[in-house]
């Protein structure tokens, strides 16, 4: 019984990070209809920002959260403003290839700057933990989860309450109507892409606490972001959060599945990816727009 409780905790802690990774990806996809394949590379840049600040200036990873956000926001904003606007109305494949190329570029620059070495951010509280009954909770991951919740909460509030947030939502609902009401769509797009990159940067910072850094680390998270985002529903803040948590928990429980068919021993933990994807498939069949997604035309 206590193993199940521990798995639930493990799943929620892992899911919180995935939610933040997926959040920026989901916003850009949902609002701009661009599948940003460079999202993983942005996550990596966020992680390395934290690493660099931590090793060079002893800046605590949680303190570097806003710095990662701002740096990546500016980068994303400029990329959209200066480059992507040229192809904003181009067919989907064009933006797909553009972001893919961008990802290769960023990863290879990172390989030159930081080399292929694996690095880690090990703080004084890395590894520190407390027990709650029989369940062990690592502090760093708990902080990470709390940060993830705070970030998604802030995003949601901002999108609903602020003027820019409302303009963003209006643009995603109907570009024409938004333009008629005075929304500058190119500006909104640049902000959204910047937000996506900024949130990726934040995710990278959070990941750096539990996962080791190397220039290609983003790929693994890009694929998970993709699944989480489809699972939760496109362009929705709650969707990314729920999707992330569901994915994390399913993976955690899948680990303990262990069964034998005939003489063949099947270990659930070796299949956790497959099991998570099967869950995605079931959700897509039962509820094609994702758990929190809204039906669109």
């Amino acid at each position, binding site marked *: 019984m206590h193993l199940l409780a521990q798995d639930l905790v493990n799943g929620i802690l892992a899911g919180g990070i995935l939610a933040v990774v997926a959040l920026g990806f989901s916003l850009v996809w949902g609002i701009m209809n661009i*599948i940003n394949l460079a999202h993983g590379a942005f996550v990596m840049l966020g992680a390395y920002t934290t690493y660099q600040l931590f090793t060079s200036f002893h800046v605590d990873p949680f303190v570097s959260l806003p710095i990662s956000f701002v740096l990546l926001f500016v980068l994303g904003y400029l990329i959209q403003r200066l480059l992507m606007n040229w192809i904003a109305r181009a067919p989907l494949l064009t933006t797909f290839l553009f972001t893919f190329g961008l990802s290769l570029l960023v990863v290879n620059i990172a390989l030159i700057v930081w080399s292929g070495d*694996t690095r880690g951010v090990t703080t004084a509280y890395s*590894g520190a*933990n407390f027990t709650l009954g029989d369940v*062990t909770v690592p502090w760093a991951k708990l902080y990470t989860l709390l940060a993830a919740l705070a970030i998604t909460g802030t995003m949601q509030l901002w999108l609903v309450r602020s003027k820019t947030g409302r303009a963003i939502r209006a643009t995603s609902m109907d570009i024409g109507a938004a333009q008629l009401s005075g929304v500058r769509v190119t500006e909104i797009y640049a902000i959204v892409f910047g937000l996506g990159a900024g949130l990726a940067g934040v995710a990278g910072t959070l990941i750096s606490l539990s996962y080791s850094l190397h220039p290609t680390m983003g790929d693994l998270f890009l*694929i998970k972001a993709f699944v989480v985002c489809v699972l939760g529903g496109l362009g929705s803040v709650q969707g990314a959060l729920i999707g992330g948590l569901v994915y994390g928990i399913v993976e955690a429980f899948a*680990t*303990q599945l262990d069964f034998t068919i005939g003489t063949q021993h099947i270990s659930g933990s070796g299949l956790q990816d497959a099991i998570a994807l099967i869950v995605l498939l079931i959700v897509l069949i039962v509820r094609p727009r994702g758990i929190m997604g809204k039906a669109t035309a």
Partner: protein
Amino acid sequence: MKLRPTAALGILALCATLAAPSVPVSAAGDTILFGSPVSLTGNLTKEGHLTQEGYELWKTYVNSHGGIKVGGKTYKVDIKYYDDESKNDTSAQLAERLIDQDHVNFLLGPYGSGTSFTVAQIAERKKMPMVEGNGAAEKIFNQGFRYTFGVLSPARRYLEGVLEMARAQKPAAQTVAITAASDAFSQEVAQGAAAWANAHGMKVVYNNKYPDTATDVSSIISALKQTNPDLILNAGHLQDALLVQKGLREQNVMARAYGYSVGPDTPDFANSLGKDANDVFGGAQWSDAVKYKGDPGFYHTAPEYAKAIMDTYHHRADYHNAESTAACLAFQYAIQRAGSLDPEKVRDALAKLDITTFYGIIKFDSRGLNLYKPMVVNQIQNGRLVTVWPTLTADGKPKYPAPPWGQR
């Protein structure tokens, strides 16, 4: 037009298989051209670069010492690399390109068992001799391939040394928990470790695997913790070794000893984990403490080799460096003995090879596998890598049992 998720996933997969950046090198008439698809990006980047360093160090040595004599004529050597992005299929495609378009004379292996296996199939089909130093899965050598040779001790023996060491300490380790990545190499390491433990009266209390793309292994650690083992073993690669070690620390899992197939030997392990890396054991193909005296034609001893790596690449020589260089050495001696660049003759010379190098004995069984070189066990002690087993080559004593977390 809204892009449907399923369609997007398809395009994503397509994009991922495209794009294989190349690192061009020219080939000339008096040059023996080797080719290698190697992991310069992807999840095995670090190991791939160490492999490339091992190859390059050999190339520099040979070229600065006149080259290789083949039947009266002296040749320089050159190596053409492609980045296989740590992907098995890409590696095979690039091997084909090296053979068909770049007309390389011989193949040096990629990094990893998965890639070595797919490239070995191409080498076989094209009758192209390949010596690899980075694919230890026996699966590669059980296919009846004639053209693939491996200088490594096989995967199943990676953790035998750690088991043997832990069993010889007081209090002896009696129960073992094993976690392993799902790739072929790691699975063979895990099976070998479990078989050795069972055959020597130790009890395997936990044995499970995780996908080699895992970004979180905390639930496996939770399940392992419940079995309360004396010895915790991990069969995997650097990335997951770090993930497992962090997980053990976070969940406060105490054992007498911790052993990894890959990880502790790479400086990145200690650099990333700091004090939490201390007292961990790692099985290694080689260490700069081994006491072989090599045949003439290259650095004779492990310390000489280690110094060359330090002078050139400014880090401590890693066994991935050494085994990669050893693969080149196998070619060097075989080509000299064959007295020809004819692939068939070089293949036969490789099959008959029996040399001693700074790395150990290189001699292949009928399958092309080097069974004649033992593994060593290293331990990280106060941030430094110390060879602790077998006692004959050791330059320090194992620290056992491990102190509690936070006191390492």
